[in-house]
């Protein structure tokens, strides 16, 4: 029996359990079969799309999400540190917060980050860790090399003429780290060092050089 042929049965889930395990072993060492599998999965995906059939009951979605929520485990929850950083009320407050030791600062990203491929690169990086903000407004995802993204949940879309601006604190100074208009995924435009904090303020369109408003939330990569 030609082992390569079994890739078709594998893609259709038509192998017996023992055979399935054995073929996975084979796949790990056979480039040709991995390529076949990639193509066969496209075919089985097309077969799946061609099924038609009834729609699921509306309750299924809620049950799945509820169960998922109860298993949520790999996010580092926000812990209040001894220097609690309350909402930053002004640029002066930013300096004050920094004065009590919030960190060493970022080097700007040499690589241009743009668009969804970069989002995927950060969010999908297996080395990345996830940190939650105090009240769950956002998660900060940081790769081992310091590339970072904010996953913002609770903000309303920015009003006309305004943008949300992201800040990283660097030597007591809030450095611009990107703009966004609505909740979702926002990439930071500069690298984050371990332990550094990030804040978000609402500013005029296009952003400003230093924060002028109170921080809507802060989160820290520690």
């Amino acid at each position, binding site marked *: 029996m030609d082992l390569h042929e079994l890739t078709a049965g594998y893609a259709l*889930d038509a192998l017996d359990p023992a055979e399935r395990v054995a073929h996975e072993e084979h796949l790990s060492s056979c480039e040709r079969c991995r390529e076949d599998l990639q193509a066969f999965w496209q075919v089985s995906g097309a077969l*799946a799309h061609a099924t038609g059939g009834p729609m699921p009951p509306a309750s299924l979605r809620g049950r799945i999400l509820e169960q998922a929520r109860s298993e949520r485990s790999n996010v580092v929850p926000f812990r209040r540190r001894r220097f609690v950083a309350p909402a930053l009320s002004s640029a002066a407050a930013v300096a004050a917060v920094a004065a009590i030791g919030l960190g060493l600062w970022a080097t700007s990203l040499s690589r241009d980050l743009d*668009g969804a491929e970069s989002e995927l690169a950060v969010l999908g990086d297996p080395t990345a860790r996830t940190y939650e903000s105090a009240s769950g407004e956002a998660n900060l995802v940081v790769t081992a090399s310091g590339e970072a993204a904010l996953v913002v949940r609770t903000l309303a879309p920015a009003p006309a003429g305004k943008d949300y601006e992201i800040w990283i604190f660097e030597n007591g100074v809030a450095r611009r780290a990107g703009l966004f208009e609505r909740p979702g995924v926002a990439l930071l435009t500069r690298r984050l060092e371990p332990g550094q904090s990030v804040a978000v303020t609402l500013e005029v369109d296009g952003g400003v050089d230093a924060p002028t408003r109170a921080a809507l939330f802060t989160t820290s990569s520690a």
Partner: protein
Amino acid sequence: MLRRDLAHLSDEALVALVSRSEESALAELYDRVGGIAYGLAFRILRDESLAEDAVQDAFLDLWRSAGSFIPERAKASTWILTLVHRRAVDLVRREQRRRTEPLENAPEPTEGSAEEAAWLRLDRERVQSALAKLPDQQREAIELAYYGGYSQSELAERLGEPLGTIKSRMFSGLSRLRELLGNGLESSGTERTPWTSTS
């Protein structure tokens, strides 16, 4: 609110977010793929509650193992449907519920936008016309395996053919389908999330 604002993300970026335990990304993926997933599970299991179990188990598999997804290997939607299919097949074998009719006319999906329904119908027609071009025995082997949940050895017994013959048929049939579907595989009509910039 966030879910709507994840709409610009690709399925793959959503899976990456799911690996960060972002529940809203799981919800968005369910909204994109859940209907097709349930249709597939129902087709195999012919039972509403078992189909729900298969879809729920598969999405929880996704929730737990999204970090192991490799975007270079498969589209995210394909991967999710693979998880659903495997769960459904495991269930149908355990429950011994399998029906023997190879194909029947499934009802049209009853929800979703008209545009979405039209794309899905095009997908179905394309795949069904490709299936129709296969030699009968190859088509039968693929349909009984994929939609019926039969393993190769069960098929050999059922059809009274040597196991090696079944294996070859399935390989030839799938290879031929791959040729027949050709480029259409890369740009499925249900792909509605091109890479877009957020800026």
